[in-house]
């Protein structure tokens, strides 16, 4: 590394930040003028302009392009109707990908939220709660690429020599034959899920633990006086009071799970029947050069999120009704 490497980069950073500040000031100036003349629609336009512009170029256009591409062949030269969708729903390996994705989006949000809630309850008010929380929260700061390297030293299997993967060494210690985890279907799918769960539980714990502290003590005391036992209090008082926090956690983890790509990429490359939609889409479009199939997988992925979007629409409506 040379000194110019440093000056080049930080120089660019400085120029970039200054330019951004200038743009921001210009926008704000125009908004100020419009506000004074009471033209609130113009203000809204200026406030939304940068975001909408960026989104249109970077997401809306690609989304539409993808939808069109899914009706075309490998290199986009020929319209083939629904053939790609037919492939996605009948080809055994494509079907396996869909089944795996379905498993992922059920198991990961469910387990992450449940474990997060359990852990949050267990450590609530315990001495050293912050440390407990921090330890489980740590993986959230680790990249998927980093996590995959970390977990390689857990799942690694060695056919002939000593084991360097922890999981297999544990088996050896108790006298069981080591297993080639990542090559063994179907357990390999669940082991990959463990990596994502490992990352997401911390998120669930922290949000739910904070929500738990918001549950009024009086309600719990009242329930206790009424003779409810711990599990009754938990299910009938605590859980309903933090219901919305639970839903937010589950939805956030659900979306993260659907978009998951890196862990599969880094650990199995989707081989041994471990492929999921977001990875297969990439694999089809970029590695295997089949734009049509890749796009189809992307459209299916989008379709899976529609229920969540509908739920959100319903939420917005409800809040507006409440606000009135």
């Amino acid at each position, binding site marked *: 590394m040379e000194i110019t490497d440093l000056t080049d980069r930080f120089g660019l950073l400085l120029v970039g930040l200054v330019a951004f500040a200038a743009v921001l000031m210009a926008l704000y100036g125009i908004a100020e003028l419009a506000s004074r003349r009471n033209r609130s629609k113009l203000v809204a336009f200026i406030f939304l302009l940068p975001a909408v512009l960026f989104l249109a170029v970077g997401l809306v256009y690609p989304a539409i392009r993808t939808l069109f591409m899914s009706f075309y062949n*490998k290199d986009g030269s020929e319209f083939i109707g629904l053939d790609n969708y037919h492939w996605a729903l009948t080809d055994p390996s494509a079907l396996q990908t869909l089944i795996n994705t379905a498993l992922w989006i059920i198991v990961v949000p469910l387990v992450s939220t449940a474990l997060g809630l359990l852990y949050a309850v267990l450590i609530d008010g315990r001495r050293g709660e912050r440390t407990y929380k921090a330890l489980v929260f740590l993986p959230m700061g680790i990249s998927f690429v980093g996590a995959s390297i970390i977990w390689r030293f857990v799942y690694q299997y060695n*056919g*002939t020599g000593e084991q360097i993967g922890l999981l297999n060494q544990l088996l050896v210690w108790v006298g069981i034959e080591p297993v080639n985890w990542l090559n063994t279907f179907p357990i390999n799918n669940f082991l990959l899920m463990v990596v994502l769960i490992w990352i997401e539980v911390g998120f669930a714990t922290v949000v739910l633990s904070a929500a738990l502290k918001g549950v009024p003590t009086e309600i719990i005391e009242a329930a206790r006086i009424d003779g409810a036992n711990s599990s009754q209090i938990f299910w009938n008082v605590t859980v309903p009071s933090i219901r919305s926090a639970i839903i937010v956690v589950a939805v956030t983890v659900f979306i993260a799970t659907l978009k998951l790509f890196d862990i599969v990429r880094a650990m199995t*490359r989707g*081989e*041994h029947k471990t492929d999921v939609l977001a990875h297969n889409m990439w694999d089809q479009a*970029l*590695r*295997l050069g089949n734009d049509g199939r890749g796009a189809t997988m992307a459209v299916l992925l989008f379709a899976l999120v529609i229920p969540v979007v509908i739920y959100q629409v319903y939420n917005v409506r409800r809040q507006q009704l409440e606000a009135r």
Partner: protein
Amino acid sequence: MSKTRRLAFLVAATSATALVAAACGAPEEDDDARGAVPDDATDCANYEEYGDLEGETVSIFGSIRDQEADEMTEAWSYFEECTGVTIEYEGSGELEADIKVRVDGGNAPDIALLPQPGLMANFADSLVPASDELTALAEEGWSEDWRGYGTVDGTFYAPPHSSNAKSFVWYSPSFFEDNGYEIPTTWDEMIDLSDQIAADGTMPWCVGFESGGATGWPGTDWIEDIVLREGTDVYDQWVDHEIPFNDPQIVSAFEKAGEILTNEDYIYGGTDTISSTPFQEAGWPILEDGCAMHRQASFYGAMWEGGIEVAEDGDVFAFRFPETNEGDNTMLVAGEFVAAFNDNEAIEATRQFLASSLYHNARLQTGPWSTANQGVDPASATTPINEFATEILTDPDVTVRFDGSDLMPGEVGASSFWTGMIQWVDGEKSAQEVADDIENSWPQ
């Protein structure tokens, strides 16, 4: 200070100390196999024909990384110095995907070192065909077989860069000598030798197919080696899908490979360890006489740990995978091709330079490498195994065929063929079932 904060500071302090402690100067990187650039390659007079390219920049993209990339850039550093051109090299571990994103995104590199002719065919529309001068250079430098793999639909695009000899079997010369074993020259001799070694109490074969997400590829080489030795016609038809993948000839090639790969008396550690033994380390037991032979390409020479002598009279060396038919002289090969996505004077000059024997000679001497360029002296290779490989690759009498899995569509050559090999050696599926599966995955 809260506990978390204390924890964070502790972590920060530890890592800062580690970083500072680690920063005791750039690491030393020395290796015996790293040679020097030959004199004629450092003489600017030899670069005059490329003209003055001062201020020009050429970007090159490839899958070569790490030390190998250093050696490569060193070999062209004098070209840069003498012509004034700047070459920006970038090595990627995800070449197929990265190159697709860049080409489709309008950001293609000037030159790409493509390891698969099949990949080149996908991008043929974006490639710049070879100029007459470059074609002439390629005709001088490479045999027709080789040039054929740089050609798409009759247009020549890309001369080869490095070349690997893949039909190699690694063995321990001293072990063979001590036990009076002869290097086999036919398949049958190899089986007889295996039986004898097994009878003498050593496992004849070490096999490992594990390679992360690409697990299974070392197995495809076995099948390719065997099919190739049935006849180049069959091989070409198979690769081009003129005969189906589950053709009886291919299934019988699987079964023939099975004489070794699924033979419990032959495989070190047992056949069930094949799919999980990393290919990089699979041959290592040869050194401890744990097994006698390991089939892997010439590049495996770089996978022996430091201090191990890779030479005909050393600790370990390789012999050619034996022929099936008397009088055949075949070699399975792989390598990269120098394809260009853009065109200007500097790019054209760089392409010509990379196809010249001046470059290939220099590269041969900057580190372990092998090439099929006719203009090089194999003896200047830095290691005996690369000398051996280069000798074979530059021998016009040897019939070469490119690694079939790199020529097949990605859905097969980089996916179902790999998976099939694993299922087959694991005993999950029979040769016929695997061949049927792979045939079904062939894109229509």
